[in-house]
């Protein structure tokens, strides 16, 4: 009699634990646990709850798999599952990418293994347009100093910027994911990220470049290099801290080479953007103060003047 009472009490606790963890489940499913819970308690006479936890976990995953059949990739619902984020979650992920901490893995802590496509896509779009626009604005600033420079909207830079950024943010994660899968085939103990998680990490890590690019408008060279270095450090640190737990099971050589290549590619992107979109300004004119205080004329110049930009 007393044993039956004890078993009934345990059953209730398991059900409430599971309900607390997954609040969407209905209580009617918890009756499936009853018999298994009984078996686990009976086998561990000392009352260790390790076996119960394992049973709970397997039951829970079984229940979750029963609840949500994955829609096929040809349905709209499949892609909708990648946009299942709220405003607060996106902002939280952006903050997490701006402040990388050594112990905190971006995928585990911020994404919580639920990657989204909204962040990477729109961050890349914003970065591409901001690059093109600020690159054009530096031409305006250059024209203030040296009126012989011919201003033009340079719309082709939008195309170049968007192709570069999107290729970087989607092809490099693809290569990285493929490489990690290959290494996992070689060494079983390595962890793995899904392709979408890798894309997410790269996409959110590019966010820090958006304010940096805007700050590159300030025409002070050493300040530009400082901002660039700071942004690169933050971004690359985020990537390295995320990849380290996965890669540390590998040989030191492979881990080192992988992290080095990741950081190198990121540096190449930053430097390439700086040099292509932000030509250095012409030197200050040493002529009369009349020229130094010339107003910005972003409109017509005689088209016969050759366009000259100081290299």
């Amino acid at each position, binding site marked *: 009699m007393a044993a039956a009472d004890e078993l009934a009490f345990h059953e209730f606790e398991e059900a409430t634990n599971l309900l607390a963890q997954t609040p969407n489940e209905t209580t009617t499913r918890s009756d499936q646990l009853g018999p298994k819970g009984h078996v686990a308690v009976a086998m561990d006479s000392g009352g260790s709850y390790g076996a119960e936890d394992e049973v709970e976990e397997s039951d829970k995953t079984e229940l979750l798999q029963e609840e949500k059949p994955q829609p096929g990739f040809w349905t709209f619902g499949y892609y909708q599952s990648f946009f299942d984020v*709220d405003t607060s979650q996106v902002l939280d992920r952006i903050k997490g990418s701006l402040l990388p901490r050594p112990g905190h893995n971006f995928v585990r802590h911020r994404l919580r293994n639920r990657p989204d496509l909204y962040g990477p896509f729109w961050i890349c779009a914003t970065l591409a347009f901001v690059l093109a626009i600020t690159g054009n604005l530096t031409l305006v600033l250059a024209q203030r100093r040296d009126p012989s420079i011919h201003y033009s909207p340079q719309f082709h830079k939008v195309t170049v910027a968007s192709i570069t950024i999107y290729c970087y943010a989607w092809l490099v994660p693809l290569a990285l994911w493929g490489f990690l899968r290959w290494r996992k085939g070689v060494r079983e103990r390595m962890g793995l990220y899904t392709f979408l998680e890798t894309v997410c990490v790269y996409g959110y890590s590019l966010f820090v470049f958006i304010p940096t690019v805007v700050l590159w408008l300030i025409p002070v060279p050493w300040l530009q290099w400082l901002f660039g270095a700071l942004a690169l450090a933050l971004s690359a640190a985020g990537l390295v801290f995320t990849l380290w737990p996965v890669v540390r099971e590998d040989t030191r050589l492979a881990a080192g080479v992988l992290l080095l290549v990741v950081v190198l590619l990121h540096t190449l992107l930053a430097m390439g953007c700086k040099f292509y979109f932000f030509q250095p300004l012409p030197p200050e004119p040493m002529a009369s103060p009349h020229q130094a205080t010339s107003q910005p004329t972003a*409109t017509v110049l005689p088209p016969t003047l050759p366009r000259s930009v100081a290299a």
Partner: protein
Amino acid sequence: MFLLSQQRPLELKIFFPNSSQFAGLSDISIPQDIPVEGEITIPVRSRIREFDSSTLNESVQNTIMRDLKAVGKKFMHVLYPRKSNTLLRDWDLWGPLILCVTLALMLQRGSVDSEKDGGPQFAEVFVIVWFGAVTITLNSKLLGGNISFFQSLCVLGYCILPLTMAMLVCRLVLLAEPGPINFMVRLFVVIIMFAWSIVASTAFLADSQPPNRKALAVYPVFLFYFVISWMILTFTPQ
């Protein structure tokens, strides 16, 4: 196919067979033929009138004026955005097409620059407007919005109207002599019209999203109109 037209009287004649076959109904004696006359009136819904053969016979001017009036009415709704459903309910893509073509044509310049360095080409403006609108619509639907694809395209396209007006004003202002005042006037006009576009489109689009995702759906609209405003502001003739 069967066309419903206006009310008209309908004649029915009912013929009964020989009453001897209905021997069981002995109380009732029915003569051989009873002509029955009456009127059947069918209430006609106004929508069906559109499929009437009469719209095929109307003059071309009527057809065009009807569509133009619909477009004009929606322009008014954009310029004075209220919480009304007209843009959503009777969507059409004529307005966005007219606006996009006008904007792209006005952004052309007699290209003295090399092709690479100039402003956006006609095709580039077209691509940005239409693919931008499609992308924003897809984004809105993927986030779980309950607006249909073409309704969203319609709203985004119509809300380019303030920016097209800004382009007109900029082109007129650029006929005057260049200078900082010229630039400040253009900047002011473009900023006002950009804000107007955003307000108009959010008035229509924001309600279709759940409240915790409104900002996620509105930000791409902001980016879209910002890029168009940038193209307008940096336009320099010749």
